[in-house]
C-alpha cells in the first residue's frame, strides 16, 4: 500500500473565539477560522486549491463547502463537506493527504464551525443530536445522546468493574488541563466528588461527565511535505492515519466495550511505524467520560479493562506520563458539535510547534489524536510529529 507517512504537513492552524459566541453565525465562524489559518500560514486565499468543511447543525447548508468557497470567493479544485459525526474532523485529513499526494490539490484548507450554544435552544440541540438514533427502532424510545454513551459506560462497569469515580477522573483531568488554557470555556478546577455530586443525566453519567455545548470554529492548512518548509511556522507532519467503522446505531454494535478505535489505531500506528509507547501526548475524543476510558484501552495505552486504574494513576493529567486533551477537551475547552475535535488538532499543532505556553508538554515530539462519531461508530486516528520521519 502506498504509505502517506510523512508526505503531508499542517502549516497553518487557527481557532475562533470559543464557548458562548453570540452574534456570529456558524458560516461566519467557519470563515473566521479559515482566515485565521491562512494568516497563520502566511498565505493568501488564492493559494488554497482545496476546501473541506463539515455542515453546521445550527445553520444547515445543502452544499456546505461550496457555499463557504463562494462566501470566501475561492475557486478550489477540490471542494467537499464530510459527515461522519465527530470523526469527521480527522477522517478528512486522510482524504486531504491522499488528494495532495496524488496531485488532486496542493494546498487544502480544512475549516469547520458550529453554534450549538447560541443559535439553537438546548432542546433543539438535544433533539438534533439524538436523531443519530435509528428512526424506527431506537429514536421512539427517547434515548438522549448521554443515554447512548451511558449504555457503553454501564456495560464497561459490568464487564470490568469500572466505577463512576474512574469515569469522573476523565472530567477532572480535562479540567486540570483547561485551567492552564486561557481560551477554555470552563477553567475552574473540579474534583471527583464534584463530578459525582453533579446532577445525574443518564446513569452512570452525571452532568460533569458530559461535554459542553458551545460555539466555535477551527481550521488548518495542509500541504505537501516538500512545500511545508516554506511557511512561517515549523510544519507538523502527519505520520500515520487510520479509520475504523463498525456500526452506526449502538444497538448494532458487535461489541459494547471494545470499539473500532482499536483498528483505526492499529492502522495509524502501522503507517507511522510507531506504537503507544512512542506517543508523548494524546487528544482523545471526550464527548462523555467513558469514551476516553475506552479509547485509552483500544488505542493501546493500557490493557482492556484497565482504563479505570490507568486514569486514577494520574497519567492523563498535566505532567503525567500521557497528558490527554491538553487544551481541556470537549469536556472543558469547547464542544460545538461535529467540529469539536478540530480544537484537539489545532492544539496539537501548537504543542508540536512548542508554542503552547504554560500548558506546553515538555519535549513533545509525537502525538496521537483520535476522534469518533455516531455512538462509538466511526473512528479516525492521526499520529503527528515534528519530523517527517
Amino acid at each position: 500500500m502506498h504509505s502517506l507517512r510523512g508526505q503531508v504537513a499542517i502549516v497553518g492552524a487557527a481557532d475562533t473565539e470559543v464557548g458562548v459566541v453570540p452574534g456570529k453565525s456558524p458560516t461566519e465562524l467557519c470563515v473566521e477560522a479559515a482566515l485565521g489559518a491562512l494568516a497563520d500560514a502566511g498565505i493568501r486565499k488564492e493559494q488554497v486549491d482545496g476546501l473541506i468543511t463539515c455542515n453546521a447543525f445550527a445553520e444547515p447548508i445543502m452544499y456546505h463547502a461550496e457555499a463557504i468557497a463562494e462566501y470566501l470567493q475561492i475557486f478550489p479544485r477540490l471542494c467537499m463537506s464530510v459527515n461522519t459525526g465527530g470523526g469527521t474532523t480527522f477522517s478528512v485529513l486522510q482524504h486531504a493527504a491522499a488528494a495532495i499526494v496524488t496531485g488532486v490539490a496542493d494546498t487544502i484548507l480544512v475549516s469547520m464551525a458550529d453554534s450549538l450554544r447560541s443559535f439553537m435552544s438546548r432542546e433543539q440541540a438535544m433533539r438534533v443530536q439524538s436523531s443519530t438514533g435509528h428512526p424506527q427502532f431506537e429514536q421512539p424510545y427517547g434515548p438522549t445522546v448521554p443515554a447512548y454513551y451511558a449504555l457503553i459506560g454501564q456495560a464497561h462497569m459490568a464487564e470490568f468493574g469500572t466505577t463512576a469515580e474512574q469515569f469522573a477522573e476523565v472530567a477532572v483531568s480535562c479540567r486540570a488541563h483547561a485551567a492552564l488554557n486561557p481560551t477554555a470555556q470552563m477553567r475552574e478546577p473540579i474534583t471527583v466528588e464534584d463530578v459525582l455530586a453533579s446532577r445525574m443525566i443518564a446513569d452512570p453519567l452525571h452532568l460533569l461527565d458530559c461535554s459542553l455545548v458551545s460555539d466555535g470554529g477551527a481550521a488548518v492548512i495542509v500541504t505537501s511535505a516538500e512545500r511545508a518548509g516554506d511557511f512561517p511556522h515549523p510544519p507538523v507532519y502527519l505520520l500515520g492515519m487510520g479509520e475504523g467503522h463498525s456500526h452506526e446505531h449502538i444497538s448494532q454494535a458487535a461489541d459494547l466495550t471494545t470499539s473500532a478505535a482499536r483498528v483505526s489505531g492499529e492502522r495509524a500506528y502501522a503507517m507511522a511505524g510507531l506504537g503507544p509507547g512512542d506517543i508523548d501526548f494524546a487528544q482523545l475524543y471526550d464527548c462523555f467520560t467513558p469514551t476516553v476510558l475506552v479509547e485509552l484501552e483500544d488505542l493501546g495505552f493500557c490493557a482492556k479493562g484497565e482504563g479505570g486504574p490507568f486514569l486514577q494513576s494520574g497519567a492523563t493529567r498535566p505532567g503525567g506520563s500521557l497528558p490527554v486533551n491538553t487544551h481541556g477537551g470537549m469536556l472543558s475547552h469547547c464542544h460545538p458539535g461535529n467540529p469539536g475535535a478540530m480544537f484537539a488538532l489545532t492544539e496539537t499543532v501548537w504543542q508540536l510547534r512548542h508554542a503552547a505556553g504554560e500548558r506546553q508538554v515538555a519535549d513533545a515530539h509525537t502525538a496521537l489524536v483520535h476522534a469518533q462519531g455516531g455512538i462509538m461508530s466511526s473512528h479516525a486516528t492521526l499520529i503527528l510529529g515534528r519530523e517527517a520521519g
Partner: protein
Amino acid sequence: MKRILPSPTPLSEPYWQGCRDGVLRLQHCNGCGRYQFYPRNLCSHCSGRELAWRDASGRGRVATFTVVRRGVSPAYEAPYIVALIDLAEGPRMMSWLVDTEPEDVVIGAPVTVDFEAWSDDVSMPVFRLEQEESES
C-alpha cells in the same frame, strides 16, 4: 409535544403489524437459518435474500441499560429505562424496561416482551423483568 413514532415502511410493516397483534416478529434467513434485527432486504449474516418473518419467543436478557433522568422531550417523562435486549433468537434490539425500579435491573437479567399502544397505529415493544418463579 408528541413522542417520536416510527414510520413503518413496506419492508418493516410485518414487524409493526406483529406489535399491533401482540407478537414480536423477527426476520429469519432461509439460507443460513439465523435471525436478524432490524429488518433488512438482505441477511446481515450471509447476505442471503430469502428472508421470512417468524414469531419470536419474546424472551431475552438485558445486555446493558441506562436510566434517562432528563427526557429527550417533554413527551418523555423521566425517569425511564432505555435498554439493549439480547433476544433469545440472537439479535439485539433497543427497548424500554417498564414496571421496574432502576435499582432492580442488572445486566444479564431475563426479560419478556410486552406491548404498549402509543397510538391507533403504533404499538411499541417494551420489556419487563421476568418474575423469579419463571426463572427456573
